[in-house]
């Protein structure tokens, strides 16, 4: 079978998020980068499916030259090869991103045959547009199920479980299909050292799509209230007990 996974390079957050002076971007001076956590589950799912069923897996990203790091990370987890739609670092809106990915996917399918499954993260960890997967599916005319917490291959169709309030909606759709997945779908493996070393020599095809005039303009970002709270250690072992009691007392549960 053939599987594609689309990922995005995003800042690793953990501490308080700072914006650039013009409030149009996150200040990444002290931040590392990763692929969105949802997508990591997509990569893991693709790797597992290929391990079980054999075939070919491809990871795609639209991003700056440094995004090759995330492509290598995906390949370290087992994906066979990568397609890098290189940008100059400018943000692309969801419509433009989807159209560039569509072009790359179509080109790959023309050469190698259709993908049975195309995985997306449900939404990216930074801009959270919730659109790219759906737009690609629509353009390809393929079924699309979003927000998945479980994916099971059943012959020529795929059973998809979507988390909804109070339970799960279950869909069975025929292949080929587009799935957007969420963290919790699986527990992604850590890359092994041999996996990382193999990833170094796996092929990365690079193209440089032209950025269309954006139809969506980013005016400014704002950090939501409540951001920047941090967990605090009250101590280690028995010495922490009085502090814990105090917290519980303040919370009114003691």
């Amino acid at each position, binding site marked *: 079978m053939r599987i594609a996974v689309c990922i995005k390079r995003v800042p690793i957050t953990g*501490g308080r998020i700072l914006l650039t002076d013009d409030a149009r971007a996150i200040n990444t*001076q*002290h931040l*590392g*980068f990763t692929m969105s956590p949802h997508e990591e589950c997509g990569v893991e799912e693709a790797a597992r499916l290929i391990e079980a069923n054999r075939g070919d897996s491809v990871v795609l990203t639209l991003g700056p030259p440094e995004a090759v790091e995330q492509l290598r990370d995906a390949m370290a987890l087992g994906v066979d090869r990568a397609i890098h739609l290189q940008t100059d670092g400018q943000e692309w809106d969801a419509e433009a991103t989807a159209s560039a990915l569509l072009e790359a996917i179509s080109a790959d399918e023309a050469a190698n045959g259709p993908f049975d499954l195309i995985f997306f993260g449900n939404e990216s960890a930074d801009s959270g547009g919730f659109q790219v997967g759906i737009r690609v599916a629509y353009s390809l005319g393929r079924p699309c199920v979003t927000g998945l917490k479980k994916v099971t291959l059943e012959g020529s169709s795929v059973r998809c479980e979507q988390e909804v309030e109070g339970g799960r909606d279950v869909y069975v759709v025929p292949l080929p299909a587009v799935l957007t997945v969420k963290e919790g779908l699986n527990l992604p493996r850590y890359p*092994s*050292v041999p996996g990382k070393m193999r990833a170094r020599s796996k092929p990365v095809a690079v193209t440089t799509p032209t950025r269309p005039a954006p139809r969506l303009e980013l005016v400014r970002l704002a950090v939501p209230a409540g951001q920047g709270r941090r967990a605090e*250690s009250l101590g280690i072992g028995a010495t922490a007990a009085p502090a814990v009691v105090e917290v519980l007392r303040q919370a009114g549960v003691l």
Partner: protein
Amino acid sequence: MTLPAHARCVVIGCGIVGNSVAYHLTRLGWGDVVLLDKGPLPNPGGSTGHASNFIYLVDHSKEMTALTMDSVRQYQELGVFIQSGGIEVARTKERMQELTRRMASAGSWGIEGVSLLNPTQVKELVPYIDESMILGGFSTAGVGVVDSLRAGTLMREKGQAAGALHVAPKTEVTGIDVEHERVRRVRTTDGDIEAETVVITCGVWSPRVARMAGARIPLTPAVHQMIDIGPVPRFRGAKSDIEHPIVRDMDTNMYERQAGGDLEIGSYAHRPILYDPEDLPPVEQAALSPTEFPFTQADFEEQMQHALELMPEIVGDESVGVKYAINGILSLTPDGMPVLGESPDVKGLWSAAAVWVKEGPGTGKALAEWMVHGESEIDLHSSDIARFHEHQKTRAHVRARAAEGFNKTYGIVHPSEQWASNRNIRLAPFHARERELGAVFFEAAGWERPQWYESNAPLLEEFGDRITRRTSEWESRWWSPLINAEHLAMRERAGLFDLSAFTVFDIVGPGALASVQCAALRQMDVPAGRVVYTPVLSPNGGFKSDLTIMRLGDEHFRVVTGGAAGMADKKWFRDQMVGGAELADMTSSMTTIGLWGPRARDILADTTSDDVSNEGFKFGSCRTIEVGTQRVLASRISYVGDLGWELYVPIEQGLKLWDTLWEAGRPHGLAACGIGVYGTTGRLEKCYRAHGNELETEYNVVEAGMTAPRVKEEDFIGKAAHLRHREEEPAAIMCTLTVDDHRSKSGEKRYMLGREPILTRDRKRIVDRLGRGSYVTSAGAGPSVGKHILMAYLTPEHAVVGNRLLVEYMGERYPVTVAVAGATPLFDPENTRIRA
């Protein structure tokens, strides 16, 4: 909790060092100590929090080993030390030789439980290693892992329990007020504290905090990469953090250690990645901690390969994943040693920075002793913050040397190895002449000093068999037989020496005499025109320094000391100055040329009409004479044990003086001589001691054999201790030994370079009643006596002329004989030459 308004001492930084300094200050009796950190406890976010926490014991540096050993002792007492053993493995023949040097250092510093292993033996201890990759290993049983955060907490709690320590986390220092060059107040986000003393133990932030007080702490934050892989099937069910020896893969600059069920792999092999303290994020903006930067995979590619080669069973296991990977930030300094002591910029402002977990508690204790008692049990001269010359504190220098030193973390570093970066900072006025003579330059305090001159090659032929040749690459490195040739030319005719690297400072004014009396062991109330060589003692009567002082007038003294110790000596003298004395640094105003040898007087006489006869210019005197058209301060003293003078002129006249002497000297066979003669061969033949080698605070004047018949009436630092030492039987006696047979098992002749252990004939360490082991403090050729000379402190029973002992070198033992017990020179024992 509100901060106290006043503190005896404010310690800034709650890493392993700050906790340790604070605790030891309270243990030594200081109350009102405040310990601050901008981060939360127990892990405020500095380098302690992400350290790999293992401790290797053996270092070629005595000082570093002593700090480490003391730290291990403290960690053990705190119950946070797990002994695992450690093996440094060798992939190359050069490394195997280096491991024999580590064996020797272990012997010198008294570390037991060390052995050299063959690959099979390594495999028995580390079953997951691929022994075909290695030639052998150096095993240290006492290696282990600590919980440094826990240790810090325990020390903090002890100080608090004693009621002497106030701890304030999440309190950021916003300013340090300095008044009249003394620290007065620490400003924080929670209020101000009036402080008598302040200690900066802020690790990688230290330069930034020091700058608040207008002081400098020369270090740079740098990346150390580390990954953690697991779960390792073999370690499943591990009962403690570590059950297998820690492996240092020396040739690849890496280590691998078990960490519970995982394996931690660290590297010092990648390109140096340096930051500025300003690059560190605030605590609340850091994803992990402010000192755990995002991992840069590209810098670790080769290291994965190396780890895989060495431990394929674990690293090659597809089920073992990379769980954690960071670019951990740690501190590097321009010379690889910590930055300890009171800042020369601000009184009362102390630094304990660039200290790693392995030496943290020992450093904290030593610094606290220094603050409370005026000196520490362990001699810290190599770590003294006052050691840096101005250019060595610049950002560019710190970064250049830190970058160069980083990949030497596990390197094979020759004792004479020279730095390549940021050279040619300080040039003698006759530097061009030296270049024309083919000088090979070594660096001292930033000065470029000729070590020998290639143009002296014809001397090799002249002296023929009297010059020992070395065939071993190691001992030939950073060495030339020309040193010995220059030495012989000096002894037979005369030598011209560039002594520009001296640190020279004048102490003047009505308080000048009292000031120098306070620092000097010897009587300084001498007639003007006398030059006095004197030890400078620490409060406990050990050697703080040794130097010469010229009395140039009633209220004018000129102190001349070596470049390496110069800045620390300057601070020491300044700290002892009484009212009415002023200190002026003349180092860059004066230059010095040494002229010594039996023809020195003839040469000098040819340039001057002043009386330079023995009667007219006695040994130990100094005065201004005319050399050609120049007025030259001539000082009749010698560190090479021959007739001659140190000649001082304003630096812009140095070239002229050089040319004058050179021209006058040619008919007399004058040779340009490098520091190889001045610092080693000439000195060792005369059994002259050197600071940092024979002279350290751990040894006293009596032991060094430098006791004068009388002690001056006037008070001086270390007097009470010195008087006591004179009454005691010395625990050790400085001896000069000569090597009886240089042949190794392979038949090649080998020559010790220093720091090797001295053993009894039955191969036992020699340890004095104070626990100090015997090791070679200095080693070098004695071309005029035809022997290779070693100096070492020996116990009185062994300090007997003719006593036969062994020296361990590169895994073999060579017979040596005690030639001198005490200070009598090996060459010209009656000192007729210098008094000729």
